[in-house]
């Protein structure tokens, strides 16, 4: 519930404030968004497994985002930024899919 309210509030803020992303942050924001989405879905899965912990959620959220950003930053510095960001996106996508399938099993019991 809180997650849904927070999501809506963030989207509304984003629409009304019309933020200008600093140019330094521009290549990292999509990765950060995907990482955060993965953390959120992981939290949803653990909620259904009745093992949700706010501390774990916060830490996984932040560590996901920071790790993804650092990986892309490293890739940029090594000259393989686009490939590494693709790798990060693929891994996070797989995780998102597995999380979603776990949630689906909890909802439909099968």
């Amino acid at each position, binding site marked *: 519930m809180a*997650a849904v309210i*927070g999501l*809506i*509030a963030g*989207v509304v803020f*984003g*629409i009304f404030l019309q*933020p200008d992303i600093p140019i330094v942050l521009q290549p990292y*924001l999509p990765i950060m968004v995907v990482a955060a989405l993965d953390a959120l879905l992981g939290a949803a899965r653990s909620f259904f497994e009745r093992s949700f912990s706010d501390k774990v959620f*916060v830490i996984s959220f932040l560590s996901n985002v920071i790790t993804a950003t650092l990986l892309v930053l490293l890739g940029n510095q090594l000259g393989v930024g686009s490939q590494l960001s693709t790798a990060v996106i693929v891994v996070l996508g797989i995780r998102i899919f597995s999380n979603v399938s776990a949630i689906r099993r909890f909802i439909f019991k099968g």
Partner: protein
Amino acid sequence: MARANHEHYEQHGHRELHAAIPRYHRMNTKDKVNDTTDTGSFPIVRRKPPYGPRGNARRARIVSSVLVALLSALLGFGYVAQVRNTESSYESLTEDELVRVLDETSTQVDKLEQRKSELNAQLESIQSAADKQEEAARIAAQNETTNGILSGRLPAEGKGITITVTQGSTHVDASTMFTLIEELRNAGAEVISFNSVRIVTSSYIKDTKSGLNVDGQSAASPYTIKAIGNPEDLQNAIQIAGGVGSRLKVQYNAKVVLKQQESVKIDEVRRSPTYKYAKTVE
């Protein structure tokens, strides 16, 4: 096992108690050691107290909700920001799309160039038309000046001569004066005035009792005729042997004084007539 020992102890008498206590105690400790379930094969699971030592469950839940909401808001905000950013840049387009965009843009540029050259041609033609119009206006202004001088509408100034005819004993008749003016005209006089009357194409001179009448204004001796033109030609036209000058002197006994001047100013003007019948041919 330990429980069974205790039951055994209850059944026997009070007397045996003192002697049995240390034994039982030993047995009990041994049993405790023997009864342990820690085999080492399974990890020890330490149960966590549900919500800290205080157990303030409600506050913890609120904090957790706020944290979740905050992070979700962060995610939503980042998502919207990224979506807005992606819409306005070509970064996410594929190569084919970029090529297409480039093609479209260059086509548009070509079209605009074509339009520009068309408009330039139009501008040039309009400018030349404007130049022509300006030329026409200039000629019209020139014509206006010429016609104004010719028709007596404008005052004029220039080289010329001044003739003063002082009447002697005989009356100088109109036809002689008219001949004088005609001679001046033939000699190329551009502007002529007769005693403060501007001579135009429709000018006339007629005799009156006291003197002459020029275009409705009476004139008396001495008559002053001013003419603008080549002074030499004008003087020759009057002073030619047997000309109008000598005729005035001989026939009418009049005194004719001719003066060449560098600047003859003729201020007299004539209002241009309004034509009743004549119209210009377009």
